[in-house]
């Protein structure tokens, strides 16, 4: 009897531990992985709508491609700027001019490696020229190209080639509403 009284709490402890152990294992196995980066196709008309619509915040757009060295070089700076401003003051999207075949491979792979979380598009146009002209008739299509639009959809800053982050920040500070940048 004394033996039975002693064994019951021990057995209960073992049972509880055995229940807890798989739960722990389960928790570790299903810890939510980061969302995979989705790159959306955008055609010329959709790009036009995106750029020209009125919005509550300024919009920063970076045109780039995985094959473009200065694009890759500047990306860490863009990711920092994104994390600094997009949560409260700015909209920021990237538009890749890679081939559509790269939409699920090379482009998200690069963005993932950069830990880039801004909305990402890939231009879906067999002829890129109309899209280039919609952005800026004076842009020759060379990459990278970075454009900043105000709330009315007007270009307030542009830079062709690798961005100077100090200069870009200054341009952003000029258009974001005071109080929003903090």
């Amino acid at each position: 009897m004394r033996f039975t009284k002693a064994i019951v709490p021990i057995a209960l402890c073992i049972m509880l531990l055995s229940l807890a152990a798989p739960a722990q294992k389960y928790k570790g196995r299903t810890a939510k992985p980061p969302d995979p980066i989705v790159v959306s196709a955008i055609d010329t008309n959709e790009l036009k709508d995106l750029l020209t619509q009125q919005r509550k915040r300024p919009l920063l757009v970076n045109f780039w491609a995985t094959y473009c060295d200065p694009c890759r070089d500047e990306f860490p700076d863009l990711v920092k700027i994104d994390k600094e401003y997009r949560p409260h003051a700015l909209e920021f999207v990237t538009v890749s001019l890679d081939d559509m075949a790269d939409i699920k491979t090379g482009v998200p792979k690069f963005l993932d490696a950069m830990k880039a979380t801004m909305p990402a598009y890939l231009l879906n146009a067999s002829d890129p020229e109309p899209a280039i002209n919609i952005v800026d008739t004076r842009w020759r299509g060379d990459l990278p190209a970075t454009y900043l639009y105000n709330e009315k959809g007007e270009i307030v800053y542009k830079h062709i080639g690798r961005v100077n982050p100090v200069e870009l920040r200054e341009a952003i500070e000029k258009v974001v509403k005071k109080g929003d940048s903090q």
Partner: protein
Amino acid sequence: MKRNLSILLASLFVIAGAIFATGARAEGEVPAPPAIGATIEDFTLTDVDNKERSLKSLAGKNGTVLLFIAVQCPVSNAYNERMAKLAEDYKAKGIAVIGINSNVAEAAAAVKAHAEQNKLSFPILKDSGNKIADKLGASVTPEAYFIDAGNKLLYHGRIDNARNAAQLETSDLRNALDAALAGKAIEKTEAKAFGCSIKRA
């Protein structure tokens, strides 16, 4: 000792300034290209065998296509077959194709190996110091310039609309060549070139 340190620091500033000045040349600062109708001056560059070749010595009797190309650029490489075919198709019609590599990191030996590997049979010149790329305002690879027998610029821009040959819709460069050969006005004299930025010195 202090004087030496000052000289050393001053030298470092000068070197850093020079590096910054060189590196600060952004791709957006490419000189403007000549206007359509402008005359392109003759020039001399070395080919992949280090022989001097002038534009005049390589020009076709009915015109010349200058193609800025690259070894490592995937867009330029997507056009290798199309460029080789273009050179072949128009050679018999008196239009010569000349490749120009202005990328600072692509040496003549690499350009030669790449041409052999990809069956690019047209002459390719090495534009060291990107002097010709600057003169013509070339910014990407591939980028084409078509000049007539008098070196007058008739067309500048892309080869066609699509990196992916399966999506080919408009062969802008071929259209320009065909119009010129037929003695007709070229409908589209400029089309924005797309590709990898030329890596300048």
